[in-house]
């Protein structure tokens, strides 16, 4: 039995990874193929689909919208995340665990249900659907991630550092500015990047809450109706993929660095 497992487990793992990533790998490959139809054999190498992208006004508008929404959503999610993470790690108060659970809930709630609910509530409130409502939706789905990243930054942050600052005459705000913020900077940047990426990639919230505006994912979805546009969608998708990957790598590196740094402040390593 064990021999059987030894032989087949690596094969299974390899198969699994191929299944997971092959489609993603095909995206960049077909995006530099001369043929408008994505099929093998490849007909030739070209960058023309990429060159078309910046000449498409609708695409540029969607990209600009996504950028604005991403910036706003990541800033808001991170500011709220700092407050939540600080409260969760610093204070013991009744209902701390349930509150933590509720903050994380959007991770497991079906996003389409949340989006539809938000749509209903926003319309009842008489708020027109604009990019602002998209930002609200994105903040909701970004917060679990930003709280996770920031909590890991605050945990292990030696509380006596803030006490030492107060002891040396600094005010509460001064302590936050001169000690807490610089110590947390990597985690904060990491939270901003993760939130921005999630906002950039999100389709469902934007689809329900954007009204007449478009964001990049909505633009892509719209283009899929036209077979001739497929290669440029593939090119755009490749760019988004690479961009997201880079942002998330930077975010994770910073988060780990923050973790190392805050853990170094404990009792001295002689």
């Amino acid at each position, binding site marked *: 039995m064990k021999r059987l497992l030894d032989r087949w487990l690596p094969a299974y793992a390899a198969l699994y990874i191929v299944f997971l990533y092959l489609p993603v790998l095909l995206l960049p490959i077909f995006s530099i193929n001369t043929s408008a139809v994505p099929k093998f054999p490849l007909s030739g190498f070209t960058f023309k689909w990429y060159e078309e992208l910046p000449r498409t006004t609708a695409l540029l508008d969607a990209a600009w919208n996504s950028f604005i929404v991403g910036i706003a959503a990541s800033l808001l999610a991170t500011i709220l995340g700092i407050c939540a993470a600080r409260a969760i790690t610093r204070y013991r108060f009744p209902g701390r665990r349930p509150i933590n659970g509720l903050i994380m809930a959007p991770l497991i709630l079906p996003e389409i249900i949340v989006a539809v609910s938000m749509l209903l509530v926003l319309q009842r409130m008489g708020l027109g659907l604009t990019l602002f409502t998209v930002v609200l939706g994105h903040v909701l789905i970004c917060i679990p991630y930003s709280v996770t990243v920031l909590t890991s930054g605050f945990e292990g942050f*030696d509380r*006596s*550092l803030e*006490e*030492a*600052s*107060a*002891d*040396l*005459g*600094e*005010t509460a705000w*001064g302590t936050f500015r*001169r*000690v807490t913020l*610089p*110590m947390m900077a990597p985690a904060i940047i990491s939270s901003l990047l993760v939130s921005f990426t999630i906002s950039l990639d999100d389709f469902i919230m934007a689809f329900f809450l954007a009204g007449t505006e478009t964001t990049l994912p909505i633009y892509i979805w719209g283009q899929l109706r036209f077979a001739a546009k497929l290669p440029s969608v593939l090119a755009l998708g490749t760019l988004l993929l690479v961009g997201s990957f880079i942002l998330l790598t930077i975010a994770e590196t910073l988060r780990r660095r923050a973790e190392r*740094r*805050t853990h*170094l*402040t*404990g*009792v*001295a*390593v*002689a």
Partner: protein
Amino acid sequence: MPDRSMIEIRNVTRSYGTFKALDDANLAIREGEFFSLLGPSGCGKTTLLRMIAGFDTPTSGSILIDGQPMDGIPANRRPTNMVFQSYAIFPHLNVEQNVAYGLKRMRLDAAEEKRRVDEALAMVSLAGLGKRGATELSGGQRQRVALARALVMRPKVLLLDEPLSALDKKLREQMQVELRRLQQAVGITFILVTHDQYEALAMSDRIAVMFGGKIAQVAAPKEIYQRPVNRQVADFLGGMNFIKAEIVDDAGTSIVVDTLGFGRVKTDKPAAYVKNGSAATIGIRPERLRVLWDDATARHEVAGTVVERHYFGEITHLIVEVPGMDRPLSVTETNDFGADDLPLGATIRLGYDPDALVAMAD
């Protein structure tokens, strides 16, 4: 004015629910004094220190620093500075920036700030290491930075929370000497929290011994060690032989007791002595009993049989059974004359000074 009070603790209690971390403490710490709060963990010593610093608030009672009541005054406006147990060196700043941290708020001109930082670094023997990163320091160096960062503020009181507990034995002993020297050089009132009795004895002008939120005794190291007020204090400060005794005569400042094994003894009565019927407890430290070799004699002797022997390098610890005593005596003897070679079962005579016998409360 050497006897002026720098810190006054007046009826201070700190409760957490029904648990009293500090129970009606009263204490006056003099200006320029090296004062230690000594006790086991959970005795309230750190709670008291944190209340002096302003990180914690008394449930009742008040704390005065240099005559000023500290009620409602936050930590950042108190004339105290603290050396934290974890040192709390700011990891994102270098040594110089750490030391200058508190000075920044004073808005000194750059030259004056630099002069004071350099002076503080020189004081703790870290001159020239100003540009070193906080994470590149050894344990001992981090401690020195923490000291310099507090001293540069020229506080009226320097608070030290178990500052040496993270260091290895050799470095710890070296730092004890240095800290004491430093305190005498700057003349600032130091308050040290420690659970290490040797540390407290070696460095302090006076010690407060605390148990369960109460201050048991406040006195100079020698007094605390030799004349503990009760068995708990005696035990915490080191080994002590407890001898059952019966009071024969109680004459004001001294008492006469009949002891098991030590005969009739006259001894000083400690100030906090509590009479418990006619029974009394007499104590003698193991090193105050010395082995009498060959035909040496002492005015006061007690004889017994060696039943255990423990070798500790420079000393040997003997357990000696004395006829008539309910439990054996502990004796600490230097190894100059062969205490480490005494055979088990040997009969030996022990000499002592009656002054070494002390009456105490149970």
